[in-house]
């Protein structure tokens, strides 16, 4: 009796400790978000938390600054193209990876994740030399290629995981009823992996929106992405405009997540 009672008490203290850890973890993750969002509404001239008074002046300031707005537009455009191109390639790679068996399949997975395993700086420098070689150095196309490369693994992981959930007997059943490969893909596979595909697209977009090192090295002449523009801005001024910019990014990500939830359901994406 006593021993089981002690075990029970131990279990309770363990689960209490675990819960505490989770709470601390969440505070650690969410505190910067709360601080940055809060301080973007301040009336004062410095980024501070808690904010002094409430105002939207720093949002007005953000949208009136040409360098920041053009950075935002550039980041949005590159992010969207990255999301679309990466998703298409990742679906094709996922379909190819699915047909491999054994050791080959493992190597294929590693190969697809390579951009994550090589330090970003190395990839960026290598890509810079390569892009100059093919006359795309310091162009938007070059920067776009860099973003697609760096965002691909995120989309691939999500999409290939969704594809692995689809049993191969579904494809065989579809074929036995006369479907071509394309029909099977469009009518059976794609609808089933849609949540994972949408999730992959969002991962790719957010990752692209956030890239710094590679953008710094590959950025076109006279063009800046939002992170670069913000960094330039913060070098000379420490105004809450930066907090407003960060809040806008957070809202954009949330809109993306909400869209997926609305269209396909997030819980089905995992």
């Amino acid at each position, binding site marked *: 009796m006593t021993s089981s009672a002690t075990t029970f008490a131990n279990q309770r203290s363990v689960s209490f400790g675990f819960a505490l850890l989770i709470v601390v973890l969440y505070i650690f993750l969410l505190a910067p978000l709360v601080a940055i969002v809060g301080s973007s509404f301040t009336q004062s001239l410095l980024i501070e938390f808690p904010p002094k008074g409430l105002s939207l002046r720093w949002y007005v300031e953000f949208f009136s600054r040409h360098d920041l707005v053009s950075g935002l537009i550039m980041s949005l455009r590159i992010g969207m193209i990255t999301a679309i191109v990466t998703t298409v390639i990742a679906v094709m790679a996922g379909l190819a990876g699915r047909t491999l068996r054994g050791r080959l399949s493992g190597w294929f997975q590693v190969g697809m994740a390579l951009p994550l395993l090589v330090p970003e700086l190395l990839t960026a420098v290598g890509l810079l030399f390569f892009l100059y070689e093919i006359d795309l150095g310091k162009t938007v196309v070059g920067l776009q290629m860099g973003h697609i490369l760096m965002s691909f693994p995120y989309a691939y992981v999500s999409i290939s995981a969704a594809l692995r959930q689809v049993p191969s007997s579904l494809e*065989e*059943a579809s*074929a*036995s*009823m006369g479907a071509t490969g394309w029909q099977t893909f469009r*009518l059976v596979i794609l609808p*089933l992996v849609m949540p994972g595909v949408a999730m992959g697209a969002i991962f790719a977009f957010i990752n692209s929106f956030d890239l710094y090192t590679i953008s710094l090295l590959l950025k076109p002449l006279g063009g800046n992405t939002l992170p670069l523009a913000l960094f330039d801005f913060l070098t000379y001024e420490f105004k809450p405009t930066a907090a407003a910019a960060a809040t806008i990014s957070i809202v954009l990500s949330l809109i993306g997540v909400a869209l997926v939830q609305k269209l396909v359901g997030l819980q089905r994406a995992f």
Partner: protein
Amino acid sequence: MATVEVTGLQKRYQDFLALDGVSLKAKTGQLISLLGPSGCGKSTTLRCLAGFLEPNGGDILVDGESIVSTPANRRGFGVVFQDYALFPHMTVAENVGYGLRLKRLPKGEIATRVYDVMKLVRLDGLDRRLPKEISGGQQQRVALARALVLQPRLLLLDEPLANLDARLRDEVRWLIRDVQQQSGITAFYVTHDQSEAMAMSDMVAVMKAGRVAQFATPREIYQKPTERYVADFTGEANFLPVSQVTGTGEGSYRIVVAGTDLEVTGVPDIPIGWDAELLLRPESLSLVAPDAGTFRGRVTKSAFLGAALHCEITLDDGDVLRLAADPNEQVSAEGKVGVAIDRSHAWLMPKVAP
């Protein structure tokens, strides 16, 4: 509505020979079972028939024409899978109508044909449900309906009952057989359950390590197996070692078994000196008085099972026989008994086919 002839089918995976010359023949409207333990090649054979696997050798003729190079989506065969393989995002009716939709038939015709076939497999009223909202037995019937609605030349079933519980299994089994016979479709049926194969099939192919050990009617497979492997796989069996085998004509032999001379029938042309055994199914044996019958021994085990009394008899020379006696028989443990055999059901066969 098709005849099928498989000749010398081979399938190799690196250095493993999954199919080593499989030959089978199906007449129009027959149901052929492929029976064997896992890894014997029965599913591989079916997948070659369906077109999901490409054989490395041999040929498959349907109505006299080779289909080996025809891709799966142009073979026009219906396939029913062990895991049902229903499309989870489509309703029952959409699943059943999938093949018709691919053929771009008019909506009205699709609806009528789906309705008809769902009625045939007793699924009426479930058309708007999703697969996950219906029971396993119903799911398997959807899979069957989905294959049948296209009026396939050939129906291929890969362990369709393996995931069902015993009661449903019986129900779906008879449904499959009824529908298959009504529509006269030639069918191949993969199973590892011998009673299923026996009950449903016109012909059974017992498979062993990538080969067909015996291809015959269920009765012949059970009563006249070609080797011990087949007899073992098709039901309870006693095997007695024999000595002094002498042929006395086509398929009849004089043998000495457990110290007794016997005249029996058996597999024709067993080579002289080949290791042979006498097959005695439990139901061909009966208990008699100690001084009557063919063999003498004592009862070493008995278990009352209601409909029958299962006994284990150890013969005087040490061999063991299992038999099902009349449940009202008084059997005393360690008591001496005689065992009579029904000579027409004793079968001499090689231990391993030559």
